[in-house]
């Protein structure tokens, strides 16, 4: 039981919350960076290797692109349909091989990244699919290379939607990061379980909720601000970016626990 009247209750609470927040930010931060680094190229590869798309002949004979597309599409779909808890358990051997252990904050980054990559890749895919077809033709007419097409046309045009996708992805990684607390992953989820669940301290729960809420709000605010900054479309599209909803329907494809794992 928690002794609320103990003289060092508040300083203990502050210490626990600070440590938990630090761990959550570390897990979420590293997982987000890895997700973007791997998921962005993956999403572009998914769009580009479709039938008749811009990378169809860039990887050698057409069957190479076709195979890459099938394999990646399959992996992404599997990744999207496995509930997080199960993925986390299934990944234990892999995590142990990679990190040396499967408990702790660093080890938790592995399942967090792996669950987030397919979802983010799908969002990138949707964002890039939204680029006007005329722009591919324009790049070709200008004699641009595939790399110039991706870098200067596709990424530039879909950047606002991708940034909103990043925002949704971070929110979801935060969601899942709370869940890794169950298997000793640390972070605010761990605080909620050890103090709130096992020792019935409602005050811990209240603070965990407030902190998580604040982090999510801040992430969404900052990223949608940046999205508006990089978007110069004006008209309906600009408004969409401004109000924080993406024309790529990121909210529907969002990586929420309710869609993947049962808590």
């Amino acid at each position, binding site marked *: 039981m928690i002794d609320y009247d103990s003289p060092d209750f508040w300083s203990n609470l502050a210490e626990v919350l600070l440590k938990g927040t630090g761990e959550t930010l570390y897990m979420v931060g590293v997982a987000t960076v890895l997700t973007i680094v791997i998921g962005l190229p993956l999403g572009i590869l998914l769009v580009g290797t479709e039938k008749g798309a811009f990378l169809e002949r860039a990887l050698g004979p057409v069957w190479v692109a076709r195979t890459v597309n099938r394999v990646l599409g399959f992996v992404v779909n599997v990744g999207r349909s496995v509930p997080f808890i199960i993925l986390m358990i299934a990944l234990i051997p892999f995590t142990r091989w990679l990190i040396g252990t499967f408990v702790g904050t660093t080890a938790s980054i592995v399942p967090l990244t792996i669950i987030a990559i397919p979802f983010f890749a799908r969002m990138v895919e949707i964002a890039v699919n939204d680029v*006007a077809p*005329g*722009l591919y*033709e*324009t*790049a*070709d*007419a*200008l*004699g*641009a*290379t595939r790399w*110039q097409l991706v870098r*200067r*046309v596709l990424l*530039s*045009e879909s*950047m*606002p939607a991708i940034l909103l996708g990043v925002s949704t992805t971070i929110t979801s990684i935060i969601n899942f990061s709370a869940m890794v607390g169950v298997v000793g992953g640390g972070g605010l989820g761990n605080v909620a379980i050890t103090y709130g669940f096992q020792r019935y301290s409602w005050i811990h729960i209240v603070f965990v909720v407030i902190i998580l809420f604040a982090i999510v709000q801040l992430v969404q605010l900052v990223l949608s601000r940046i999205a508006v900054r*990089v*978007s*110069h*479309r*004006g*008209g309906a*599209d*600009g408004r969409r970016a401004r109000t924080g909803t993406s024309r790529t329907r990121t909210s529907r494809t969002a990586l929420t626990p309710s869609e993947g794992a049962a808590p």
Partner: protein
Amino acid sequence: MITVQHLQKSYGHGPSAVRALDDVSIEVPEGEVFGVVGRSGAGKSTLLRTVNLLERPDSGSVSVAGTELTSLNGSALRAARRQVGMVFQHFNLLANRSVQQNVEFALEAARVPRGQRAGRASEMLDLVGLADRGRAYPAQLSGGQKQRVGIARALAARPKVLLSDEATSALDPETTESILDLIARLNRELHLTVLLITHEMDVVKRICASAALMEHGRIVEQGRLVELLRTPGSALAGQLFPLAAPGPGDGPTVIDITFAGGTADRPVIAQLAREHRLDVSILGAVVERIGGTQAGRTRLSLPVQGEAAAAVVADLRRQGLIVDWLRGGEAA
């Protein structure tokens, strides 16, 4: 400058296949503005897109400035495409890049060294009259300004040829005029060869020296406008001078007289009244500057028929006038 020979292109196969191009050959001399007209679905865009090989023909050859494009691939094809600029009906500008950056993208694609891009892009914007809008974004520009950016971008790599697919179709008449004037000026100043597609005959009249008419994937007529006007029964000439069809009350004989070049200022009607004692009525008339010369067409109703009418027509033709029968005579 552009030589297109025996192009064939079909979409789909089996009974549902569409023949978009059927044995199409055109020749555009250096420094000329050449217009392609035709109905929707005639194959105009397909033809234009084969010229820079955005569309690969099933057979036939395309060469631009002596380079045979159909045999190229990969980086050689990309290099050849930079010799050909292209502008689009819907401008196709990068929405999240400034006007300046849009033009610089073309220079990057053309492998112009980074340090020279900004200067060259400003130069191009100056050329199209947008020197002060480099920092604007496309959404902040009018349609006409967007198309100027499109033209600046297309010409940034200093191509010899400009392709234009309905570049003015999304613009109002006044803006259309200013864009056409710009293209005509670039044609003169840069000695640019222009191949353009349009469904507006006004565009052809205004800037083209030659034109081709497409129907169902075939070229049915092509040539210099001045020659086409002199060709009896020319469909293109008919479209250049749209006159209302004669009504039932317009008499037994209706003829069209086309004037081109030297014959334009002859007082034909007065002469008919004087020499043939005929009281002709004018059903319609158009006079325009076409292909750089004054040209016109007058539709007349003659109060005679048979031999008498034929004699009048023969007399007019002897004077070098182009006469088409619409009713009576050869039309019957």
